[in-house]
């Protein structure tokens, strides 16, 4: 099992890119990643995407992006795990390199949510949930997460304001990110008074809808210095699933897939949560952030609001959470989000994050989730010297 490095990354701004097609968006991120390093060849592309079939009438995205980059006839295919697609693609790329099957593998995610009409994007995103036993009853993706939020506040007595405060922190982070979709600050009142999406979830509890593409390039650690002066090692990577239905879960206030994936990734990397300096977590909704930080081992259960108030999730605290602004402010180009996270952690560890930079970061973690925790991918990176 070869050790694996990330030697380059690229991304587009997350935005409503009316003027760019799915393939051109991917091309832009890939070009940035390819131009940063001196790579003679790419041997394979793994591309993550959720909604292109619904919203762009296009499957076979592996071929589409290989062709766009003039890289045919290399091996290229798509990985899908709803919003967790990017994490699943990274795990696939890791294994293709680790096994020795390929030397240089591009892992990229792309999502184009604005190429459609009416309610199609919302309908398409709902397909992460159980069509027969959740969507059938009129459940929306936001409302399923709202069930967790209501329950969380009921059991722990957490004030509503805590969730607004997390959104405020994310927007403060994201305001420094040139790739963010919503790079502006907000305050608690704006968040608390924004429109209801699915009570108790309001607009500023939610990630926005936008287009984007992100790319990382992997190769064996042993040859990384051949291609690049600076790179990170993927020390641990793991994925896990949970029941598709919330009704089958034993515990509504913890997401078993996060716990399983995180434990396996920590074990593989031989570290504990205390060793992690920065994380990019999957805060589709503010409630998801709270539960995820607990499940990842950065927060005692039910103590999210207390630690948030104490600044535990900012640089200098327990762990710097989402310096990118997270899904809330950077944006959530669904199938690409997991790859954005890997690119952002790489950028941070290589001290190339500009105004977003969290100083002295040695170890970073990504946490990418599909559905309401029905799949989760965690990866752990360390700066290599």
């Amino acid at each position, binding site marked *: 099992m070869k050790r694996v490095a990330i030697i380059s990354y690229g991304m587009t701004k997350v935005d409503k890119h009316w003027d760019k097609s799915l393939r051109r968006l991917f091309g832009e991120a890939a070009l940035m990643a390819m131009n940063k390093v001196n790579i003679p060849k790419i041997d394979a592309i793994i591309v993550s995407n959720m909604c292109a079939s619904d919203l762009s009438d296009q499957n076979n995205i592996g071929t589409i992006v290989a062709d766009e980059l003039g890289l045919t006839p290399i091996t290229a295919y798509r990985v899908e795990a709803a919003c967790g697609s990017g994490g699943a693609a990274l795990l696939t790329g890791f294994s293709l390199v680790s096994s020795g099957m390929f030397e240089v593998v591009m892992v990229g995610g792309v999502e184009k949510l604005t190429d459609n009409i009416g*309610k199609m994007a919302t*309908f398409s995103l709902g397909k992460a949930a159980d069509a027969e036993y959740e969507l059938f*009853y009129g459940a*929306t993706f936001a*409302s399923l997460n709202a069930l967790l939020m209501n*329950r969380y506040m009921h059991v722990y007595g957490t004030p509503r304001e805590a969730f607004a405060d997390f959104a405020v922190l994310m927007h403060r982070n994201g305001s420094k990110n040139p790739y963010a979709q919503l790079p502006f600050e907000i305050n608690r009142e704006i968040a608390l008074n924004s429109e*209801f999406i699915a009570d108790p979830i309001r607009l500023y509890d939610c990630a926005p809808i936008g287009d984007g593409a992100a790319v990382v390039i992997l190769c064996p650690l042993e040859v990384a210095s051949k291609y690049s002066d600076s790179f990170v090692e993927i020390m641990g990577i793991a994925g896990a699933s949970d029941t598709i*239905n919330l*009704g089958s879960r034993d515990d509504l206030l913890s997401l078993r897939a996060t716990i399983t994936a995180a434990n396996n990734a920590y074990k593989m990397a031989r570290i504990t949560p205390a060793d992690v300096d920065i994380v990019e977590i999957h805060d589709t909704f503010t409630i998801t952030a709270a539960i995820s930080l607990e499940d990842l081992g950065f927060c005692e259960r039910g103590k999210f609001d207390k630690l948030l108030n104490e600044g535990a999730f900012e640089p200098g605290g327990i762990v710097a959470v989402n310096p990118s602004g997270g899904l809330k402010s950077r944006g959530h180009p669904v199938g690409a989000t997991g790859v954005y996270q890997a690119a952002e952690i790489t950028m941070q560890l290589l001290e190339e994050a500009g105004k977003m930079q969290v100083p002295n970061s040695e170890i970073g973690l990504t946490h990418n989730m599909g559905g309401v925790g029905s799949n989760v991918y965690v990866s752990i990176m360390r700066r290599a010297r």
Partner: protein
Amino acid sequence: MSVPRYWREMPYRIRLEARKCKLCNYVNYPPRTKCYKCGASEFEKYYLPQRGILLSFSIIRNPPTGFEKTTPYVIGLVELEDGTKLLTQITDVDIDEIKIGMELEQTFRRISEDGDSGIIQYGIKFRPKYLKF
């Protein structure tokens, strides 16, 4: 939703039929090929209890296609008397009277109307156990 898709799940959605594991007695709902708790694949037919309590809920004001006529409506997660949990709609109640922990019972209702296939879809919703007059 196509007719076969609707028709195929009727025993589970209308009669709340589940699969009870012959090995460990866990109630698999919706039914699975192999048991969630022990992985066995022998089951007996089992019908879920008709009553339970509300674990959590959410109010939907911006509905998917087919649910416009009953908007706003409430979805809830209900824990039945045998401990089985299911997602459903909560009905026959004012939105501001809904509380976590309230007692509920099942009732047969129209769920949605599908414009594409032209079928009206029925299923079980839950309502407060003691209706007010």
